């Protein structure tokens, strides 16, 4: 079967290579974020994530203690080692902040005012000055910092207050908001696909048109409405809102799938005396399962990653936050410059959708639309 399309080995090589190329192209940005989530903020600014496994040469400042100065032959001398704990390897050093790498390790630098500074590779240094040393002199040096990967960022986020609650809240919002629209949409899609009635074309057009309604328009009027009928900002409100917002796409996609189902099966069932309801529940619905599953995944992803609807329709106290709100409002606001934390947060919020996707993806592959179903 595989060779029926006449795949010569050269062609299949080309195909394989192009797919690899595309996949790598698609993956690289995400990999970058993943790697960054294990680094800390300083390392991220110092070197790109593609260099992260390699030690990075960075400049540091160390201070010699003026109190340790001894007087030797008329000059004041401080001796010591730059690495207070453990050991390290000095590559270059310098006496001024503007030129921290003026000299190679082992040389003797001549500083202003007749002072000298010698730094060895292992960090031993000798600082001499003819005048009395009153303030701690600074010694600048460069060394390779080993790559530092840690789960610190993840730990900070996971232990951030109420993160587990936010996770449960997100689940609580997404599952009903995925199941209920599908049910309602399936019936409507069937009606629009296989039932003949006046105004069908208009309704289909309206559904397509409603696909493009920008959500922001609906926020304030609907929240006012929710307040009026007494449900205010609550989980019930957001379930209803997501149902309303998700219906157009659901109906559109499901209808397109159902239209592609084989006419003969449905016709013969009707001839056999089945009502539309029976046709729907016993034939169309089971056959549409791949479409239902696919849309379920899209709707799940959409509600999981949604920020705006959650902020408006859920109460604003921190116990009701979903994960997107917690990350965007809490972490992004205060740790706006800490890219490591943000990267880790982004991955934490991706984790569940990815798991859902990978477990359900065989249904996706079976597909949403088919020219014919056997």
């Amino acid at each position, binding site marked *: 079967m595989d060779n029926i399309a006449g795949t010569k080995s050269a062609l299949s090589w080309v195909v394989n290579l192009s797919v690899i190329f*595309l996949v790598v192209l698609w*993956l690289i940005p995400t990999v970058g974020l993943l790697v960054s989530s294990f680094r800390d903020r300083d390392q991220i600014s110092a070197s790109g994530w593609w260099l992260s496994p390699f030690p990075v040469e960075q400049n540091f400042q160390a201070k010699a203690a003026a109190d340790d100065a001894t007087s030797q032959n008329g000059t004041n001398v401080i001796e010591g080692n730059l690495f207070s704990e453990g050991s390290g390897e000095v590559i270059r050093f310098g006496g001024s902040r503007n030129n921290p790498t003026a000299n190679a390790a082992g040389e003797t630098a001549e500083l202003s005012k007749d002072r000298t500074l010698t730094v060895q590779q292992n960090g031993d240094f000798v600082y001499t000055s003819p005048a009395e040393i009153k303030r701690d002199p600074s010694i600048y040096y460069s060394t390779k910092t080993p790559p530092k990967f840690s789960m610190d960022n993840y730990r900070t986020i996971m232990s951030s207050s109420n993160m587990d609650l936010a996770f449960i809240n997100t689940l609580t919002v997404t599952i009903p908001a995925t199941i209920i629209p599908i049910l309602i949409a399936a019936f409507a899609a069937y*009606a629009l696909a296989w039932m003949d009635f006046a105004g069908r074309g208009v309704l289909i057009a309206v559904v397509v048109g409603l696909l*493009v309604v920008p959500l922001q328009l609906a926020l304030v*009027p609907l929240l006012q409405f929710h307040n009026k009928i007494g449900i205010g900002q609550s989980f019930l409100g957001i379930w209803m809102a997501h149902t309303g917002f998700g219906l157009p*796409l659901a109906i559109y996609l499901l209808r397109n799938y159902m239209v592609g189902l084989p006419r003969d099966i449905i016709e013969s069932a009707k001839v056999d005396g089945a009502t539309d309801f029976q046709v729907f529940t016993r034939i169309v619905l089971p056959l549409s399962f791949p479409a239902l599953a696919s849309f379920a995944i899209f709707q799940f992803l959409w509600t999981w990653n949604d920020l705006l609807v959650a902020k408006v329709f859920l109460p604003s106290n921190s116990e009701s936050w979903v994960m997107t709100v917690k990350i965007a409002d809490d972490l992004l606001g205060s740790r706006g410059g800490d890219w490591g934390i943000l990267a880790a947060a982004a991955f934490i919020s991706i984790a569940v959708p990815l798991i859902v996707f990978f477990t359900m993806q065989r249904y996706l592959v079976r*597909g949403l639309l*088919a020219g014919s179903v056997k």
Partner: protein
Amino acid sequence: MSPLVQGIVTVILGVGGCVGYFFLSNLILDKVIFPASGPRPGRNINRANLVRPWLFLFPAMVALGLYLVYPVVGSFWRSLYNRSGDEFIGFGNYQTMFADDGFQTALFNNFLWVLVVPAAATFFGLLVAQLTDRLRWGNIAKSLIFMPMAISFVGASLIWKFVYANNADIGLINAIRDFFGADEPLDVLQLNFWNNFFLMFILVWIQTGFAMVILSAALRGIPEETIEAAIIDGANPFQIFFKIKVPQIMGTIVVVWTTITILVLKVFDIVYTMTGGNFGTEILPSYMMSYMFRDDGRATAVAFVIMIIVLPVMIWNIRQARAEMR
């Protein structure tokens, strides 16, 4: 009760309620109101069939009407008033809007987005779908390409910041330029006109997975016999692809194109978080966001323009639907 328990109860009630509604309403229709027995069963059945579509559609129509149609109509009405809502100015908002530089830039950029993103995403989706069709590791490849869809827009902005950053130590593009000897880092997001394409690519990156999934299924659905016949007739893989496969899945391609086009008209997060609409990257949805809650007259007018832009797509789809029904 805790939201989790509430959720479970809602799912049970919701599903049960829906099923119950549909079942009972059909039952009542068929047995009570228009029973298929009695003096004129035929007429009753016909009448039942006239009513039935509306039963199926009823919950959807209520939800759609309330959550989408009512805000839309209300918003159109609102766009005829001034910024604080107390003075009727007819199409005044639209007039000032069309004369505004910012709006014109946004409109132009939006056309670019609408032209480029669906085409590119569909193209890449189709390409990947076809290439991975018979591959042993096809499913893995597809899953990896779909992965960006699972990432929220905020996450995507962060990811691409590490690619576009104006610093060879952080941004991948500048690192590559640096490797090839460029002197200074280039801020791609400030490049006149071309920055739009860099932003567009982010959305293409995300949406290709969507297109790929749907087109892959469609490709699978093409009957084997047609392909086998073509091979026997001596067609090469390219001819098979363009002359047999593509026409057969044209309907699906249209659906994918439509859906992505509509999404492009709504997405503002990418532009909003990466450039804030500056540097000439403004598009209509982000333009609207900058007026939302401040000048609602103008914001709703922009929303209306967005909806009008989708009209051609709507009309095309209706035509397709009508053609299918025959």
